[in-house]
């Protein structure tokens, strides 16, 4: 018995530092992502609405320029505020669930990052089933949402969490089916395999008309899974106050926030990897550029291209949010089950036939 414990301890000490390093890296990515994305979103929304957005808070006296960089320290200050805030639990809530649920949601997003690549070399773990892992782990959060809504003992939270559960579970299906298209064509579940296929042939979005449609189905479903406008029904602020987050405050609320923006990044990264050629340079697609330019296809450039694609997709999500009104619950379900799902099923069959023919 002691031999077993000895072996386990050895394993932990040898891998422990490695694992904690990876964990810290993921946490760093999530935190930085949230800080940058929130600032970006506030500025983007401000310019879309003819405002300036945060303009006062700088970093160490640096106040930035007069428009975009003014208020650069705002999100940092907000994060500090959230960390130092009092942690309020309502009297009649289920305290165990309320304490547990933010961590479940956070862990869902956190673990997903294990499989998400930032370039062909920069990733935590290289799975053979990377896509499957990401799709599976990104749905863990919904358990936390249900617990959060139920534990809050608030009717608005309950509404929000039930809406959210229905929405996320429904939209997993078209998203999964669209990704399945890629898996069928590339013949692999590994992220590297899919990008290699795209390097050999072409970006998947240009593979066939069906793949083109599949990209949009996946992206719409992704926006719905992250609960953002026009699908922000679970937290619909004008209807449900703040949905399942109503009773949360301080750090536990910050974890929700962190996970929401992490999920945005995951969806965008996955869409870029699977449909938009991942870390491949867009210039490699065309023959018009001289060979010497292909140097932009290296390891660091790969990260640049992948993040650029992801940021563009994140910008589109923000664009959606500040332009569109919100759908109603039944319209949301209609869109999923009667529009996106049939289309993705037809897509699947059509791509299979396409693969047989060509």
């Amino acid at each position, binding site marked *: 018995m002691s031999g077993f414990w000895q072996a386990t301890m050895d394993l932990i000490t040898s891998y422990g530092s490695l694992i904690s390093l990876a964990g810290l890296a993921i946490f760093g990515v999530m935190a930085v992502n949230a800080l940058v994305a929130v600032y970006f979103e506030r500025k983007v929304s401000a310019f879309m609405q*003819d405002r300036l957005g945060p303009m006062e808070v700088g970093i160490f006296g640096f106040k930035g320029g007069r428009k975009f960089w003014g208020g650069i320290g705002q999100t940092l200050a907000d994060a500090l505020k959230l960390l130092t805030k009092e942690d309020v639990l309502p009297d009649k809530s289920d305290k165990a669930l309320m304490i547990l649920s933010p961590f479940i949601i956070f862990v869902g997003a956190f673990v997903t990052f294990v499989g998400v690549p930032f370039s062909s070399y920069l990733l935590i773990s290289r799975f053979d089933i990377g896509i499957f892992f990401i799709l599976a782990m990104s749905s863990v959060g919904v358990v936390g949402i249900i617990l959060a809504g139920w534990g809050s003992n608030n*009717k608005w939270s309950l*509404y929000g969490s039930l809406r959210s559960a229905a929405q996320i579970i429904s939209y997993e299906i078209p998203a999964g089916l669209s990704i399945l298209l890629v898996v069928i064509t590339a013949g692999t579940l590994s992220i590297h395999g899919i990008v290699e296929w795209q390097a050999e042939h072409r970006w998947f979005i240009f593979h066939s008309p069906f793949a083109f449609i599949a990209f949009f189905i996946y992206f719409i479903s992704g926006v719905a899974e992250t609960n953002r406008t026009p699908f922000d029904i679970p937290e*619909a602020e*004008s209807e449900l106050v703040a949905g399942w987050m109503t009773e949360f405050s301080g750090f536990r609320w910050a974890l929700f926030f962190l996970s929401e923006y992490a999920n945005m990044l995951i969806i965008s990264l996955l869409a870029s990897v699977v449909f938009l050629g991942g870390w491949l340079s867009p210039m490699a697609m065309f023959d018009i550029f001289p060979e010497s330019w292909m140097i932009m296809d290296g390891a660091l450039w790969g990260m640049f291209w992948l993040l650029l694609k992801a940021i563009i997709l994140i910008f589109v999500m923000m664009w959606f949010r*500040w332009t*569109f*009104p*919100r759908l109603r619950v039944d319209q949301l379900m209609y869109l999923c089950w009667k529009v996106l799902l049939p289309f993705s099923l037809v897509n699947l069959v059509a791509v299979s036939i396409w693969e047989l023919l060509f």
Partner: protein
Amino acid sequence: MTEQTGEHGIIKSEEMLLNMGPQHPSTHGVLRLKITTDGEIVSKIEPVIGYLHRCFEKHCEHLTYEQIIPYTDRCDYIASMHMDHAYVLAMETLMKIEVPERVSYIRIIVGELQRIASHLVALGTFGLDIGAITPFTWMIRDRERILDLFEYLCGARLLYNYIWIGGVSHDLPAKFIDRTKEFIDYFKPQMDEFDQLLTFNKIFIERTADVGIMPPEVAINYGVTGPSLRGSGVKWDLRKNEPYSLYDRMEFDVPVGDGRMGSVGDCWDRYWVRMLEMRESVRIIEQALKEIPSGDVKAAIPKRIRPPKGSIYTRFETARGEAGFYIISNGKNIPTRLKMRSPAFCNLSVISEIAEGWMLSDVIAILGSLDIVLGEIDR
């Protein structure tokens, strides 16, 4: 309550009582709705009001007639010019005062500017209720320009106390007409932009067309007035039907809901009527600016106002509907009794009739489309 026999015996599902407000983002103030829901479907709505009650009518029995005007400002604080005018209209009819022509024109100009400002708030918050945030900020930005004009006019941005019995508090400032023209030129293309952003947005139409249909009979039976009534296809506008203040000289149409996107009297129609009314208001302002005569801005009235014995009821088309003032005078300088008919109060009362059976999100859309102001409902 519904019962279903399943594998494990009888499954019961109960209705849930939901308290919406008085602190809720989209009850437009301190309205409380007791909503009975079955899942997402709303089976019963009971509005509870009075959280902003401040004894307006009782206060008036202790105030001189001039002192009442600031209180009427605070009734409908989104369109306080209209409230002033409604009260002043009653007083002038009671005292049989003929105001100079210039006063009437000034009142028309500020009244229509106020109508645009009020409709901008109404449409913007309606969009906010549906979930569209950007139209709200755009509309508030343009309303700000009107408030700037009013600030230039009388120093106040929200509660003006500008329209007085027998005239207005001061004449138009030197550049007011030019600045108003500038605003009109700026605002005209802006309305088309709102249409592109919100009015003809597919999701917006999905959310509002065929939702909360108010048939004309129901609207009339509940005493609904203003754009909400016209949204149901009833052509009734006091500026046309019972013209006061020289509105009979102005050329404008009364837009009514025609069920363009769904059926007559749905939320989209009520929205669209307001959108068209802003265009009509622009037309009226343009005419008034062109024709405004010079002259006095105060009729010859005694310094202390003592109306003759008697009573009067007049009505006035505010941005929300018919505001009526019933004043009983016994010849002293304070009224014996003052009763105000609040348009938003009647408009709100219809919600339990038209919003039952819809979903929770629709109730918020319907409430937003009725455009209530709690300051006026509770008085």
